[in-house]
């Protein structure tokens, strides 16, 4: 029985945040009333001409750099010719011959836990189409979206599973939306669209076989399911002696399967040729370096640094790398108490995220320094676990620094030394056999004595101080 492996490539379209459109000055807000953000250029009126938006170029270059791609200093603008009602000119301005970015890479973690680079073939700029809404026998067209700037990222077919594809897609999303802030990131509005090319081959083969395209899987929840379903479907066909057809399929979320949308009727001839109204785009190395200097720390670098500096586990790393605002908060907190990184991280991931929204972490009012304070108090055992939880609530309610709260709030007051000393004597007197055992060599009973004192003090004693007192007392009782 031959075993099969999957060969998957993703094409992702990212709508870029700009004030105007890619080739005209119409507002990019397409939620405006229908056909209100339009002009001769984006409606393909006779005599209209495209002019390239400079912010579009800057954002495209920063995205190329973020994916480790080579930025082509000269890139072409080309026309892709085909007829469709949502195409104002019946050609799309794109970059076919020489895209702005080539040969990038993005790391994913495979099923076996190893990290692997997925190669990115090309990154290019193009324009979006109008939006169509089907109503019965009619289609209604709204050109507000026509001409919006898009960046397309095409990977080599290096992905091996639905899970890897979801990882890759999520990473592209995070970079575009959270790190570079060049995309709004609203999936329902189609700010990012993903098409997957899926094929299978016998394990060990390096050939590429007929692929099917799974279109518009625009949800992280479904992308892995859709691709995995498609892989199984293709395997079933081949094992039954059939052949996979070259076609376009759609994911049906209700029935949880992919379905034929259309057969591929041979390769479409788009008659690509240079866009004579624009000509080649030439940018300088100085410009590219200027853009490079504006890049924030990117996910993979951030992950490595956090791991090395704070020794965080992979769940915490996922959180911070996935949510840069949460990470920024963590790092400001860790500045106040560098040795307490792990404790601070678990307080943020645990208690703070129970009451704050990680999607809007910039709005958190609790200063990072206060979380550092709580972490320190816990690490130094100034407060117990349950006390710390209560302290957290008080901190949130009063807005005061936990350091100050424990100094004055009677609930957190520490026992004075003489009171603790009295309790130590009480406990040792009450446990003569344990004392004997301890003095006989069972030194791990120290913890028992400390625990007893803490219990009698209702957590108010200072555990460090008590430990020392008990040790001294026991030494005294050695006779």
């Amino acid at each position, binding site marked *: 029985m031959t075993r099969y492996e999957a060969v998957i490539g993703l094409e992702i379209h990212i709508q870029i945040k700009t004030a*105007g459109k890619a080739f005209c000055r119409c507002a990019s807000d397409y939620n405006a009333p229908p056909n209100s953000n*339009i*002009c001769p250029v984006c409606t393909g009126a006779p005599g209209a001409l495209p002019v*390239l938006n400079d*912010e579009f170029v800057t954002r495209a270059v920063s995205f190329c750099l973020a994916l480790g791609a080579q930025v082509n200093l000269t890139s072409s603008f080309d026309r892709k010719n085909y007829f469709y009602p949502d195409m104002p000119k019946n050609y799309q301005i794109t970059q076919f011959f020489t895209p702005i970015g080539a040969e990038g890479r993005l790391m994913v973690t495979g099923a076996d836990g190893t990290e692997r680079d997925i190669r990115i073939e090309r990154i290019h700029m193009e324009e979006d189409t109008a939006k169509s809404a089907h109503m019965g026998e009619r289609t209604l067209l*709204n050109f507000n979206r026509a001409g919006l700037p898009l960046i397309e990222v095409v990977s080599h077919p290096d992905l091996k599973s639905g899970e890897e594809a979801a990882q890759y897609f999520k990473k592209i999303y995070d970079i575009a939306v959270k790190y570079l802030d060049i995309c709004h990131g609203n999936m329902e509005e189609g700010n990012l669209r993903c098409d997957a090319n899926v094929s299978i081959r016998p394990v060990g083969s390096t050939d590429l076989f007929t692929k099917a395209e799974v279109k518009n899987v625009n949800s992280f929840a479904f992308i892995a399911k859709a691709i995995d379903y498609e892989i199984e479907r293709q395997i079933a066909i081949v094992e039954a002696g059939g052949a996979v057809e070259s076609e376009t399929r759609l994911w049906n979320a209700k029935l949880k399967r992919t379905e034929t949308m259309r057969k591929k009727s041979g390769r479409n001839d788009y008659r690509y040729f*240079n866009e004579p109204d624009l000509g080649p785009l030439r940018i300088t190395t100085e410009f590219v370096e200027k853009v490079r200097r504006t890049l924030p720390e990117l996910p993979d670098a951030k992950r490595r640094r956090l791991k090395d500096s704070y020794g965080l586990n992979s769940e915490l790393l996922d959180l911070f790398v996935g949510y840069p605002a949460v990470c920024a908060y963590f790092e400001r907190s860790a500045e106040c108490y560098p040795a307490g990184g792990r404790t601070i991280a678990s307080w943020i991931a645990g208690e703070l995220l129970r009451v704050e929204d990680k999607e809007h972490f910039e709005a958190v009012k609790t200063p990072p320094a206060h979380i550092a304070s709580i972490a320190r108090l816990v690490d130094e055992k100034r407060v117990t676990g349950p006390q710390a939880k209560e302290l957290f609530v008080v901190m949130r309610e009063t807005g005061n620094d936990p350091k100050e709260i424990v100094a004055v709030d009677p609930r957190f007051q520490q026992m004075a030394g003489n009171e603790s000393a009295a309790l130590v004597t009480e406990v040792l007197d009450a446990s003569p056999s344990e004392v004997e055992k301890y003095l006989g060599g069972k030194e791990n009973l120290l913890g028992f004595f400390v625990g007893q004192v803490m219990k009698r003090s209702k957590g108010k004693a200072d555990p460090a101080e008590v430990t020392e007192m008990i040790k001294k007392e026991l030494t005294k009782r050695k006779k």
Partner: protein
Amino acid sequence: MTQRSDDIRAVYELAALTADAAELTAMSGHFEKMFKHLEDLARVPVDGVEPYFVLPLRDLPLMADTANASGVEAGIRRTFVQSAEEFLVVQRVVNRGAGECAEEEE
């Protein structure tokens, strides 16, 4: 290159044009002549010559990213052949029921 009758039909389809048999025959004749004439393109030596469209004849000017209303939105909507509440109306674009497949992406 010689042109076969299949080729001309394919070109008509790519160009989204219709033609009856008479027109197709007339056009075929016309294009035979045209392509014969175009053979003289091969006469000029072009080794090492760049195509005109990559020559650095001028810089591509960029436009600053701002949003300005065009002011002609209503005028454009008035040119719509058929409209309904500011939308442009077209016959249903994809007729899935009848098994017709749209030849292009959405």
